[in-house]
């Protein structure tokens, strides 16, 4: 066994402990350096994940390193890097910064463990590590009732979903006699007959993962949690923690679907269509931008879930690409909202409803970099080329159209048409914010945008447009990852 392949996880875990210990020793003022240390550690793991090509399995095949896990680790590390860079300013001079950065690093490790998990035990432990760290992060502003309420709602729904998932896993273990995912797939291949218990187990697993992915009807926690949490934590939750549900679903559900040859595509088709339509329609009527972004992120989860409908190599690659694009766009957009919050609070210390759409009036004049970045993120989320959002949606919708033609299936075609109409609908509420930013008169003076925010936002913009202009390597990586998903 070559433990060097696990270096990113080991590095981040050790770094989290070091950050806590440094926090015990230094004065409150010097804690500001912890953000830079965490960012440096994340950059090191990012370079390592991008640079290594090896594959391997560890701990009795409980963790595997393969193209799928590496692709999702890339997403998770990039998202928490953006969140950490923005937090350097957001939590500046906060005396609990040491705990904050340690929790972000541990949440990242948890997500990475989920990405590599090849055993139900490691999958569950990774899920819980990431979830518990983010429960605390959501309530990190402990004097702010909205933040605590967000944390409580997230905690209750999150624990409920963990319990459903664990119950489903216990049934899978009972049917197959093993907790190893490879062994479970082998078992289903050898015994293709579907029993009632298999179906019940599958329903519990779909419900458990569905809560993490925020698919309708398991989405109720997402808008409340994303609105109430500190904006940088919302970025981590919407962009990172949600993808955790997708990677687990790719690993467990798709393999199980292929092995069981069960026609579950109807279920996922209905879930995906309802999710994207509901998310987009409710987003239209929102006045809080964070809440609007939360509903738009539910809609995006609906698009990604289309990958489960046809389960071809190309559709899964499209889903994975859209997950990467969504992570950059949504993470950047939430951080841009944090800049607006900073701007409003520097006008008026006791401002309420800081993410209200009125505060975005004339943002193009008050904070030009932020406004331009939001403009890019919104167009990318709506799927306008050249952007990561366009590439993901294009590959995904194209793959379903191919499959519709190949199987001469009207239903697939209807699903694609609904998805494209939904993309068009989403332009309406993005354009509304763009109108506020560039057409309406500014409500105050121009501000100086703090450097950490600008760095995080610019990195996200470069990623979003870069993937759109030069998608080839990313498409190849996603195709390799899709091969792993399909077990080819």
């Amino acid at each position, binding site marked *: 066994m070559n433990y060097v392949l696990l270096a990113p996880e080991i590095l981040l875990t050790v770094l989290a402990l070091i950050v806590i210990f440094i926090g015990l020793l230094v004065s409150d003022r010097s804690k500001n350096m912890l953000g830079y240390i965490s960012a440096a550690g994340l950059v090191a793991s990012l370079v390592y994940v991008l640079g290594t090509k090896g594959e391997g399995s560890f701990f009795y095949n409980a963790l595997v390193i393969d193209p799928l896990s590496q692709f999702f680790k890339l997403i998770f590390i990039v998202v928490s890097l953006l969140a950490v860079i923005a937090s350097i300013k957001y939590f500046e001079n906060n005396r609990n910064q040491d705990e904050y950065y340690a929790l972000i690093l541990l949440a990242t490790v948890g997500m990475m463990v989920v990405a590599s998990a090849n055993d139900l035990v490691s999958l569950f432990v990774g899920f*819980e590590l990431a979830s518990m760290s983010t429960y*605390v992060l959501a309530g990190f502003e402990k*004097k702010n009732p909205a933040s605590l*309420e967000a944390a409580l709602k997230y905690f209750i729904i999150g624990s409920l979903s963990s319990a459903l998932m664990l119950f489903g896993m216990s049934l899978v273990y009972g049917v197959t006699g093993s907790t190893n995912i490879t062994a479970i797939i082998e078992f289903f291949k050898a015994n293709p007959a579907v029993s009632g218990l298999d179906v019940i187990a599958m329903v519990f697993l779909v419900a458990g993962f569905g809560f993490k992915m925020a698919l309708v009807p398991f989405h109720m926690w997402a808008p409340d949690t994303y609105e109430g949490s500190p904006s940088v934590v919302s970025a981590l939750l919407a962009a990172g923690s949600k993808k955790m549900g997708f990677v687990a679903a790719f690993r467990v559900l798709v393999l199980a679907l292929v092995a069981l040859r069960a026609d579950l595509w109807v279920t996922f088709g209905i879930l995906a269509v309802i999710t994207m339509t509901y998310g987009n329609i409710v987003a239209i009527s929102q006045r809080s931008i964070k809440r609007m972004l939360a509903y738009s992120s539910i809609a995006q989860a609906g698009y990604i879930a289309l990958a489960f409908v046809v389960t071809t190599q190309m559709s899964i690659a499209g889903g994975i690409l859209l997950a990467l694009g969504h992570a950059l766009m949504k993470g950047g957009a939430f951080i841009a909202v944090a800049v607006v919050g900073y701007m409003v609070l520097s006008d008026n210390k006791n401002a309420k409803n800081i993410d209200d759409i009125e505060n975005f009036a004339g943002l193009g004049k008050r904070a030009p970099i932020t406004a331009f970045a939001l403009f890019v993120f919104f167009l990318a989320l709506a799927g306008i080329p050249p952007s990561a959002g366009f590439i993901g949606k294009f590959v995904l919708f194209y793959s379903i159209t191919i499959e519709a033609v190949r199987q001469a299936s009207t239903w697939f075609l209807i699903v694609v048409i609904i998805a494209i109409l939904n993309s068009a609908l989403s332009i309406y509420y993005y354009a509304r914010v763009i109108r506020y930013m560039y057409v309406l008169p500014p409500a105050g003076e121009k501000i100086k945008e703090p450097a950490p925010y600008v760095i995080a936002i610019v990195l996200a913009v470069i990623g979003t447009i870069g993937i759109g202009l030069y998608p080839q390597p990313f498409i190849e990586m996603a195709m390799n990852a899709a091969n792993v998903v399909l077990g080819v």
Partner: protein
Amino acid sequence: MTLYLYLIISAIIFTIGAYGIITQRSGIKILMCIELMLTAANLNLVAFSSFNGNAAGQVFALFSIAIAAAEAGIGFAILVALFRVRDTINLDNINILRW
């Protein structure tokens, strides 16, 4: 027949937990219901482990017991922080965030 007995008991415990989460309004009771649901899954795991004759399920149950304890700790911490700010943990009063 004994395996079925265990499965039925665990299904009943799980249902009681799920019912409680839907109907109860006190934060503490909801935490107790979550623990019930996790316990039902543990009972399943141990019963299957004994029935299948391999230890993997019992190992899984040990992991999940430890995790359930940590989860309860975090839940109570959030409730305490909420009680300090709002003077209540009744979920009917916790309704700032809504559309």
